[in-house]
């Protein structure tokens, strides 16, 4: 029988019971087949679903209760094309399936998740899973798109050839989920001829080729291609992947993104600053003068407010990134940039981690697990923090607003936006240059080829986009409410205690702990144009870059809200020279101002050697860049 697979509607699944013997189910499949979406549909958990290969690098577990009351624990494994694992995340998937992963209970059933529109590679993986012997079910995800494209899949034939049930699903609409759960239960009851972890040996290249031929045979027998193939993706790719037009469009998209971050967020930022202004004013009127009032107004509200105000910019940046991922454009961007990155000695897969590093270097460094070659991976880890992370936005914005005139140049472009874009570009160019030096000078080896499937273009799911953007906002606010809040209280303490001695002439902060620390390190940073106040701000900035802005606010003893933001900028413009401000920006482009990043590098490389190398080379680069910037600016009369 030849027929399109249908996916019935799914009833709601009951919440999991508190205890009981659970059936363990692992989701395995090619990257971008919709494993994470299926995981969400099965467990109801909220998680990032992106139209981009290699997004699943962390272990994710959820629970559900089947219709008969049986509890299931679902494990979402990283995407892989084969159990012949090469990259670290593929090794995790292989070991989890085989039951070799330390601390992980072997799965009772494996769900092989397939993109129904692209079965060629997943059929080979299904055959490999069959050889392992664990009970398995093939989920034909995105079956609705396959039907729309006119693809005819003979599910019975496929099931007979693969030796496992085949269920059509549409994970994003929860279609076919009940049938899938029921099939998993049946397979668990039947059990499998488990050759298991002891009998499995890694297939050789010849065996993989034989499996591929078998997969081709099954594909020809069970799948009939559409009579009139969909050409939309092809037509769009003719333009978007064009060697010249494609790169120009990509640059335009990136430029638009950075302009939107700088200009589009302003109205909401004004609202937030007004809110903090009101709050600060109300507290100042209520409390009598003293330590407590100073702590709340100058420490908490001024410090945290000056960081929270950048939330709209971060949300806009992520909205663009998530939209481009969900549409399917990010894989094209990786393809377009592969030649440029390859010229610098970076692997094409490095695009994903480097792009993630625009948000934060930590997920970027964790995303390097998709790179299989160790040297490629280490190179990417070393340069990832040079990409401009969102924590630098508050620092850049503050200095640019204070020192760069708000006027238009080159026929209507915002000069401030242009400087902002230039700082991002400087980070990117530096990352490529450092990668080039590392790969061409220290690690001479041939570049690995870059193979990646380009997904079909899709209309993004608004709920998924909003959920992902909201999650990013929540992470930022959580950080502001915990780490940054506690840091700001400590900075206020250092800037306030001990108080000014009786009869002392200078400002109180000169006599504080912060004043002493600043004066102590000032001689080291004086050659790059940093005053002792700037030096003080760099210390808490090591914990989180954006704290430097709040720290500057506190150091300059400015109170919170809109007034604070404006006054801080004015205060800096009054007290710093343009040369010092530019040197501060240059420092922030390169400096390893983030302890969390260094600790993640230690965790990912399992060695202190690489975080130490990273800290040393980035500090040297930052000092050199700030020194040159400062001296050139002074020479040009900006001192």
């Amino acid at each position, binding site marked *: 029988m030849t027929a399109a697979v249908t996916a019935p509607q799914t009833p709601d699944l009951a919440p999991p019971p508190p205890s009981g013997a659970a059936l363990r189910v692992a989701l395995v499949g090619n990257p971008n087949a919709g494993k994470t979406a299926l995981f969400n549909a099965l467990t109801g958990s909220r998680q990032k679903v992106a139209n981009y290969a290699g997004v699943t690098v962390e272990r994710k577990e959820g629970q559900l209760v089947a219709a008969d009351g049986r509890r299931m624990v679902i494990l979402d494994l990283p995407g892989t094309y084969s159990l012949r694992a090469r990259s670290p995340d593929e090794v995790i998937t292989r070991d989890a399936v085989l039951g070799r992963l*330390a*601390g992980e209970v072997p799965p009772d059933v494996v769900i092989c998740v397939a993109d129904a529109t692209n079965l060629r590679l997943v059929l080979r993986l299904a055959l490999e899973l069959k050889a392992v012997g664990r009970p398995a079910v093939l989920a034909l995800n995105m079956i609705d798109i396959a039907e729309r494209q006119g693809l005819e899949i003979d599910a019975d034939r496929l099931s007979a050839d693969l030796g496992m049930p085949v269920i059509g699903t549409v994970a994003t609409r929860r279609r076919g989920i009940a049938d899938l759960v029921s099939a998993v239960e049946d397979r668990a009851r039947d059990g499998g001829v488990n050759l298991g972890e002891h009998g499995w040996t890694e297939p050789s290249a010849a065996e993989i080729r034989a499996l591929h031929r078998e997969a081709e045979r099954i594909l020809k027998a069970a799948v009939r291609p559409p009579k009139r193939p969909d050409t939309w993706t092809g037509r769009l790719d003719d333009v978007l992947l064009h060697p010249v037009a494609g790169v120009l469009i990509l640059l335009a998209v990136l430029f638009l993104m950075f302009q939107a971050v700088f200009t589009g967020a302003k109205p909401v930022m004004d609202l937030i600053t007004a809110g903090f202004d009101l709050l600060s004013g109300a507290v100042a009127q209520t409390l009598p003068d*003293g*330590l*407590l009032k100073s*702590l709340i107004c100058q420490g908490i509200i001024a410090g945290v407010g000056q960081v929270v105000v950048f939330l709209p910019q971060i949300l806009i940046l992520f909205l663009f990134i998530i939209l481009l991922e969900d549409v399917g454009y990010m894989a094209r961007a990786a393809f377009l940039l592969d030649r440029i990155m390859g010229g610098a000695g970076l692997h094409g897969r490095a695009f994903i981690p480097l792009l993630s590093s625009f948000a934060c270097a930590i997920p970027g460094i964790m995303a390097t697990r998709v790179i299989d070659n160790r040297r490629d991976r280490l190179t990417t880890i070393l340069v990832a923090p040079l990409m401009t992370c969102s924590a630098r936005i508050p620092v850049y914005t503050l200095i640019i607003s204070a020192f760069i005139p708000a006027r238009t140049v080159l026929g209507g472009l915002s000069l401030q936006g242009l400087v902002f874009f230039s700082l991002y570009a400087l980070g990117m160019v530096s990352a490529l240059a450092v990668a080039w030096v590392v790969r061409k000078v220290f690690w001479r080896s041939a570049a690995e080829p870059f193979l990646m499937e380009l997904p079909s273009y899709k209309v993004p799911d608004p709920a998924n986009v909003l959920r992902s953007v909201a999650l990013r906002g929540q992470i930022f606010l959580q950080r502001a409410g*915990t*780490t940054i*809040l*506690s*840091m700001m*209280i*400590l900075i206020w*303490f250092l800037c306030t205690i001990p108080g000014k001695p009786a009869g002392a002439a200078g400002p109180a902060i000169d006599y504080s702990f912060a004043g002493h620390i600043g004066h102590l390190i000032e001689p080291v940073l004086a050659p790059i144009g940093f005053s002792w106040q700037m030096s003080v701000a760099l210390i808490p900035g090591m*914990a989180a870059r954006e704290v430097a802005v709040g720290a500057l606010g506190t150091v300059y003893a400015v109170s919170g809200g809109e007034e604070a933001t404006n006054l801080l900028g004015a205060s800096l413009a009054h007290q710093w020279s343009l040369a010092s401000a530019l040197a501060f920006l240059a420092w922030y482009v390169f400096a390893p101002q983030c*302890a*969390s990043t260094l*600790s993640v590098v230690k965790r990912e490389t399992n060695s202190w050697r690489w975080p130490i190398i990273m800290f040393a080379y980035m500090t040297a680069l930052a000092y050199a860049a700030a020194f040159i910037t400062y001296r050139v600016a002074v020479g040009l009369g900006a001192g």
Partner: protein
Amino acid sequence: MIEQLVVYGVVAAAAGWTAWTLVLRGWWSRRAAARKVAGPAPGCGPDCNCGS
């Protein structure tokens, strides 16, 4: 006096929280993960107090 107590209490809590988030939490979770992977010592039963 009370004002100073409140302020220094908040500062001490902030110092504790900062130390926890930046240093101690990572160490604690690594220790817990290592224990989970290692599992109980051989012969260790549910009532054992050996600490493994």
